[in-house]
């Protein structure tokens, strides 16, 4: 019946609006929910969201070893050419040639923090750091080498 539909429409609309107002009203009367950070004042105690992505870093352990095999999966995954990997061939003790990473170049100024490279990495060598204070006076400083000098790939990582 038309009238029944009409009243149902109105009641449904009003209840859904009230539901929204209840949510926002809850936030208004509960100031503890506020998530604003007083950023420059609380640098030391800053709490960032768990999934906040600041820049790509490569983890090195105490022996200056990383997990990057130089497979270039991250370079292929990157949508805007942020990553450039230069590979070289190392000699294994058995006298075989083995592909290894020479330089991992990361253009921070091009990076959109999309996380695709981290997802593409088969060995978990790179990850997203939460550091976000990237501003520098010279553009060249934004082009970073992620593997530390003298570092090599960890034993057993293929």
């Amino acid at each position, binding site marked *: 019946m038309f009238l029944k539909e009409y009243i149902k429409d109105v009641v449904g609309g009003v209840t859904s609006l009230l539901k929204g107002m209840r949510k926002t009203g809850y*936030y*208004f009367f509960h100031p503890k929910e506020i998530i604003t950070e007083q950023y420059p004042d609380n640098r030391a105690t800053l709490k960032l969201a768990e999934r906040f992505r600041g820049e790509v870093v490569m983890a090195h352990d105490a022996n200056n070893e990383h997990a990057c095999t130089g497979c270039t999966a991250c370079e292929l995954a990157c949508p805007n050419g942020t990553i450039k990997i230069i590979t070289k061939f190392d000699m294994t003790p058995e006298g075989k040639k083995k592909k290894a990473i020479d330089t991992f170049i990361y253009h921070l100024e091009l990076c959109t923090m999309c996380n695709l490279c981290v997802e593409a990495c088969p060995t978990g060598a790179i990850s997203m750091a939460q550091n976000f204070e990237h501003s520098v006076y010279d553009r060249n400083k934004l082009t970073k080498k992620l593997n530390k000098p003298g570092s090599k790939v960890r034993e057993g990582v293929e």
Partner: protein
Amino acid sequence: MFSLEGITGTVQNWLLNTFNPQVALLIECAIVILLAISLFAVLGLVLVLMERKVAAHIQIRLGPNRVGPGGMFQTVADTVKLIMKEGLTPDLADKFLFNLAPFVVMIVAMLLLAPIAFAKNFQIWDINIGVLYVSAVSSLSVIGILMAGWASNNKYSLLGAMRSGAQIVSYELSAGLAILSIVVLTGSLQISDIIASQQDGWWLFKGHIPVIIAFVIFLIAVTAETNRAPFDLAEAESELTAGFHTEYSGMKFALFFLAEYINIFIVCAIGATLFLGGWMPLHIGNWEGFNHVMDYIPSSVWFFGKTFFLIFLIMWFRWTFPRLRVDQLLNLEWKYLLPISLFNLLLVTLIAILGWHF
């Protein structure tokens, strides 16, 4: 006990004793103008800050908190900035209309202040058609908006102004019908009569469900009439940059901005007067003791408390609901609000005739 009535009485007596009646009247007019303008300035500062704070807390933010304690002087700083800025007039604009428009909007807002009762016996002009006057004058502001939109020679401004025209003309109807339901119950258009009729309880409580429906419809319609979200199609930042005041800058923009907030205050004051008893304290029937305790709170506090409660409600709407499309806006008015308020008016009339209200 603090009362504004006492102050005005003292001032009038002193003026009448010191000057002859004509001069005293002129001086009183000057005082009223001064008070109205300073009320506008203070309201502008307070309401803008309130809006920003309410918005921030609803969106789990803090809002302005750097200028002064808790950001209290933020709006003062903003006003100083706006005064310093250049009031630019576009080259191809209709200069006369362009410069006139903000003043039309502002004057309409000022005219609306006249019949509002701020406290017991504290009213600029207790006109016997007060409610009619308010609904008549408030629809004039659309002329200022159309003027601004047309004279700016800007497509966004024109679109915004045309939308605003369609919107105000439609929603005027249901606002008028909601106001009419109280007029039917009271039997008078005079603001002081309407307030006096709520001596033993506010209409919102006395009039059963039909008055509550009228109150909700009134709130929706005035939100639309003041061009506020979710009905801010006239401004619609994301579609029309700023709608009808896109081309305005400096103090001329500030006047539009101020007029918006003054209009909110005025419609909320009207709503508080009609449905929540204006300055009338919360009285419940014949509970003498309770009523007497409530009378100790000054009437101006009651008035401003109710008005600011309604303003808070309207701000709550703004920061909760998404904006309507034009067709949805007109659907809501013509297919829902208008039939419901017409039927509701019938119910209220029935209640008034049969004397079912308390």
